């Protein structure tokens, strides 16, 4: 065939137009991406790349020649964005951090079955990662997230305020906490007003500690709602009474975790229940007016010095089904889940998913609350099991609780309303 210049140019143009359309997968497979995108809460970036104990991602990035782009959001915001990305034809997230209570069988289809990846290319000492934590991200046998962080609650108190109020030791039972909270609602000599207790009100996380301290429960793992039983009603009554007496700040109902942290750091609250890792925030000399004065112990039961079952949450790393670089995502997940990097992140303030991390001397030095947190983790329970309408259920609980606090309903009636409104939303088991 005689090839003219015109024919050669035409063939070349066609080849240039058709080739990328014909083999995008081949082209993509042959080239590594310049970066992987991780969607998470800011705390994950902080503990994974923290300066104190080192950057868990540094060696991986150097080995792979790939940079990481962390896109961080609020707790609710990260799920909204991640689910939206995962629902598209092709998403922007290579790794997504998800919290167990925002998960559920309804979103399992949006993520890869990491059990298959684990079989093919296992994470080091995978069985060390708490079985309960793995189960929290397993739906109908499909493991959609590798646990990375737990946020387990402890009981924080300001030692200076206790001394100023004449207390020589911290409270050891829930009844003592209640008595202390009233006495610790006072005006200091410098005119600063202190509230005895601070509670975050963005979801029931803080309330479940009080409910369980009274021997109650909110929603069981098999989706039974028990909020109208004595333990739960007592907790709601306590919070109502605290609000009426001024033990809780007047604007408590607008309090999120950030407001509680600020209140403790600025000395506007004397006690609270929050994740153990907040110890670092509360005692940070750059941010807190009371560095070294905020202590944390296990939250006690009512009528006993035994520790109440603490609230815990488990964040896990998931790979969206529409992610572009799944093998690389798994490689990074493996890296972050290694024993060494679990210890590194724990020393940076993370709640480690491997109990062995608590035995590391550096973790014990940088996180002095390790022993108490390890004890709490042994009996800790999730806030509530994940299901499709969990966000609405949590809002309903907070709405009715706040009505009780405002005096618009008695606590028992409020909790009965909670049960009546949430029961139809629960999965049928």
């Amino acid at each position, binding site marked *: 065939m005689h090839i003219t210049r015109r024919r050669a140019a035409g063939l070349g143009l066609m080849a240039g137009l058709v080739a990328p359309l014909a083999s995008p997968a081949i082209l993509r497979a042959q080239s590594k991406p310049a970066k992987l995108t991780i969607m998470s809460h800011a705390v994950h970036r902080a503990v994974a790349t923290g300066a104190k104990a080192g950057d868990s991602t540094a060696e991986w990035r150097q080995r792979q020649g790939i940079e990481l782009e962390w896109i961080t959001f609020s707790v609710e915001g990260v799920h909204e964005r991640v689910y939206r990305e995962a629902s598209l034809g092709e998403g922007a997230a290579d790794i997504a951090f998800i919290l167990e209570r925002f998960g559920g069988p309804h*979103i399992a289809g949006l993520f890869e079955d990491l059990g298959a990846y684990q079989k093919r290319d296992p994470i080091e000492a995978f069985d060390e990662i708490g079985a309960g934590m793995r189960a929290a991200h397993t739906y109908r046998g499909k493991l959609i997230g590798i646990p990375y962080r737990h946020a387990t609650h402890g009981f924080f108190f300001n030692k200076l305020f206790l001394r100023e109020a004449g207390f020589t030791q911290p409270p050891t039972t829930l009844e003592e906490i209640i008595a202390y909270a009233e006495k610790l609602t006072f005006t200091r000599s410098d005119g600063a007003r202190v509230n005895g207790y601070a509670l975050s009100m963005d979801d029931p996380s803080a309330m479940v500690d009080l409910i369980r301290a009274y021997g109650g429960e909110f929603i069981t793992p098999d989706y039974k709602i028990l909020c109208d039983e004595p333990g739960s009603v007592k907790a709601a009554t306590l919070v109502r009474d605290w609000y009426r007496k001024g033990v809780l*700040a007047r*604007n408590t*109902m*607008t309090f999120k975790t950030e407001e509680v942290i600020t209140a403790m750091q600025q000395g506007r609250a004397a006690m609270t229940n929050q994740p153990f890792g907040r110890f670092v925030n509360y005692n940070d000399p750059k941010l807190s007016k009371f560095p070294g004065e905020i202590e944390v112990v296990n939250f006690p039961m009512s009528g006993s010095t035994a520790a109440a079952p603490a609230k815990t949450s488990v964040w896990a790393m998931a790979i969206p089904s529409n992610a572009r670089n799944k093998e690389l995502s798994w490689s990074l997940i493996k890296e972050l889940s290694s024993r060494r990097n679990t210890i590194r992140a724990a020393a940076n303030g993370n709640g480690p998913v491997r109990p062995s991390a608590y035995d590391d001397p550096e973790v014990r030095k940088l996180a002095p609350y390790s022993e108490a947190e390890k004890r709490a983790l042994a009996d800790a329970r999730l806030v509530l099991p994940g299901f499709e309408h969990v*966000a*609405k259920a949590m809002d309903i609980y907070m*709405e009715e609780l706040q009505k009780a606090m405002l005096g618009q309903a008695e606590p028992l009636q409020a909790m009965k309303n909670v049960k009546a409104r949430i029961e139809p939303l629960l999965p049928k088991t």
Partner: protein
Amino acid sequence: MVAPAQVLLLAFILGPALYVVWISLQSWTYGRPPRFVGIANYAAILGDVAFWRAFWNTFVVTNAVVYGELLLGLGLALLMAGPVPGKRIVISILLAPYAITEVSAVVMWRFMLEPDVGMVNYALLSLGLGQIDWSADPVDALFVVSLLSIWHHVPFTFLILYAAVTTIPNELVEAATIDGASSWQNFWYVKLRLILPALLIAMMFRYIVAMRVFGEVWLLTEGGPARLTEVLAVYLYRQAFKYHEFGAASATGVAMLVISLLIALPYLHQMHRRMFGHAAV
């Protein structure tokens, strides 16, 4: 051949609006394909106590904001139309709130209204006037939301009315004065009649925009306590971005669209008659 304006209208306004109407007829959330449910979403929101509470709160706030702004904007416009020393600087100061982003404005006012320690509440307490209990009292909260919205948006109303007031012919005002009209009569029978079209435009625009009030409520109370200060936009946001119920959220959006159209309808009808009424002759 379809004109470019019609193409833009179809692509960016009508198309998305029709899509939202379609979603409002589906049950749709993450992890599941959309499923046609007819008017079930509309039935659900119309049967929801929280929707009607949000509707009522929106009605109250919108009216407070619109009439508050009109009165304040008109007063300022009449004042600025007279002899005012340093008029340009004063007008710049009056317009300044409009240049501040909504988020910055709300966060700033929230700090000033912080219970016990915020500048405004501290001053009120010192004067023995109590506090604005916006975090616990829904009435106080909606009052603050309305005040914030008026403060932020009055420059818009002021500009429209100031432009109208400055175009009033002086001869008419002088003639009325010569005929014995008092200041009030001058205002009521001469000036107000002449600026009425501008007043109605400002009112219509503000009604439509004020109905969508979101930032002030969300950043101040998030609709709390106990969802008692929720407005329709916050209700919609909660359905879409917290509960991921896109069908219900879209149904709420359609409801808000219908309400906005009902508000705008009388004015649009008037405008249509004025523009095309003579064509029938």
